[in-house]
């Protein structure tokens, strides 16, 4: 099996400070990888380098494109990369308002992404939007409402529908459950698990919440000060952490 994403020796510096460095890994179709670490550990910098929002100073991020196989997304042209981020990639932001158009209806938010890949038939777009809103448990009578009229959890589910409607193969998520209360979090986690399984999605999830990665991620990468200090199977890293910092991180979680 060929990897969907091949990351090789990626580094990003902010002046003389390290954003992230020496990051390499392969992600295979259907795999979900979690990246954990404290604030400032470089996990969001890394995610943004992988998703094309930041240009790394070094390294390669190769993606198995449908048309041409493995392509380095860092050296490809801007239009090509934009096309990828509209089709095969999705990015779920921590704050739904960063990933939604707040002054456009829910249906419009989902439909817009379809139109960006050349869907033109209004009826088809609306049907598909209703179908996806249903899958994220937003009832069809809310299709013409704007996201500003939605709760935080609903906005996050709408953002997920908007991202997944084009059938991406790789989803980047930045703290997807951050800022939501725990009961809403649980429902969102279950939704994400179901979608990952049904669509055979690969995903990279950045979070500081170890409970979230335990439930969502197959594999885990632990970062500190811009470096990857430990990787492995999620339950193995959490139950038998090898690095001093990971041990500290795991033992610092409050028991409920």
């Amino acid at each position: 099996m060929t990897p969907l994403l091949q990351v090789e020796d990626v580094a990003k510096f902010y002046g003389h400070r390290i954003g992230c460095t020496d990051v390499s890994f392969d992600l295979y179709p259907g795999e979900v990888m979690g990246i954990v670490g404290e604030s400032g550990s470089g996990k969001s910098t890394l995610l943004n380098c992988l998703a094309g929002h930041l240009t790394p100073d070094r390294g390669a991020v190769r993606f198995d494109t449908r048309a041409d196989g493995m392509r380095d997304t860092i050296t490809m042209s801007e239009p090509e990369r934009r096309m990828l981020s509209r089709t095969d990639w999705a990015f779920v932001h921590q704050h739904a308002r960063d990933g939604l158009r707040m002054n456009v209806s829910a249906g419009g938010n989902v439909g817009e992404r379809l139109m960006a890949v050349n869907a033109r038939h209004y009826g088809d777009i609306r049907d598909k939007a209703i179908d996806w809103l249903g899958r994220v448990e937003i009832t069809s009578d809310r299709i013409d409402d704007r996201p500003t009229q939605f709760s935080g959890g609903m906005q996050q589910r709408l953002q997920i529908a908007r991202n997944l409607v084009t059938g991406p193969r790789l989803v980047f998520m930045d703290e997807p459950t951050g800022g939501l209360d725990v009961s809403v979090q649980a429902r969102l986690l279950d939704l994400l698990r179901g979608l990952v399984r049904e669509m055979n999605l690969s995903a990279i999830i950045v979070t500081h919440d170890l409970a979230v990665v335990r439930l969502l991620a197959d594999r885990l990468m632990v970062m500190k000060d811009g470096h990857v200090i430990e990787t492995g199977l999620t339950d193995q890293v959490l139950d038998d952490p090898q690095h001093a910092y990971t041990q500290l991180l795991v033992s610092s979680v409050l028991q409920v």
Partner: protein
Amino acid sequence: MISVENVSKSFTLHNQGAAVIPVMAGASLQVEAGECVALVGASGAGKSTLMRMIYGNYLTASGRIMVGDLDVVSAVPRQIIQLRRTTLGYVSQFLRVVPRVSTLDVVAEPLLATGSDRDTAIASAKVLLSRLNIPERLWQLSPTTFSGGEQQRVNIARGFAYPYPALLLDEPTASLDPTNRATVLTMIEEAKARGVAIIGIFHDHAARDAICDRQFDVTQFTPGLAA
């Protein structure tokens, strides 16, 4: 089916003065298809540790652990995930599930993960839950609020949903009443008859003697404990 070859394991506690605690050295164990082997030894001797090493939940420092034709010790995460999906089942003592997911879905998940269609998976889950006497009125509820015995039976139903050729059982009968205990023992017997290789930890000695073909004392491989 399961072959543990000369494995060792120690824990290094970096945040407690970098104390190194050796917990296992030179352990070897073979389990054939259709065989059930009980891990025995005092509490803390390393029964659960060995089981977790076989499941890939704990890293193994040296040696080999073959499950089917995969060496768990040197396997990469996606190989272990695949192994757990189709070859090696594990019934732990504790139920760990996504909150607010129904009991039926929890039990059906191993089947859905291996590509069964939803109707078939749910039908199998219902058969297992009925057999283990989980009242039908609870099936749509999340098992997180269930009693200890009910949670354990949900865990067992989930562990037996997919026909794994190898199974790890950690105290499967610990908090069960006599009727349910008998059901679980019958299910283990049936799995053996199907040719499943089983490794179990049983503090219930009568259960252990009834279904296990032999015992494996981990104490002999515990550094500092062996006589």
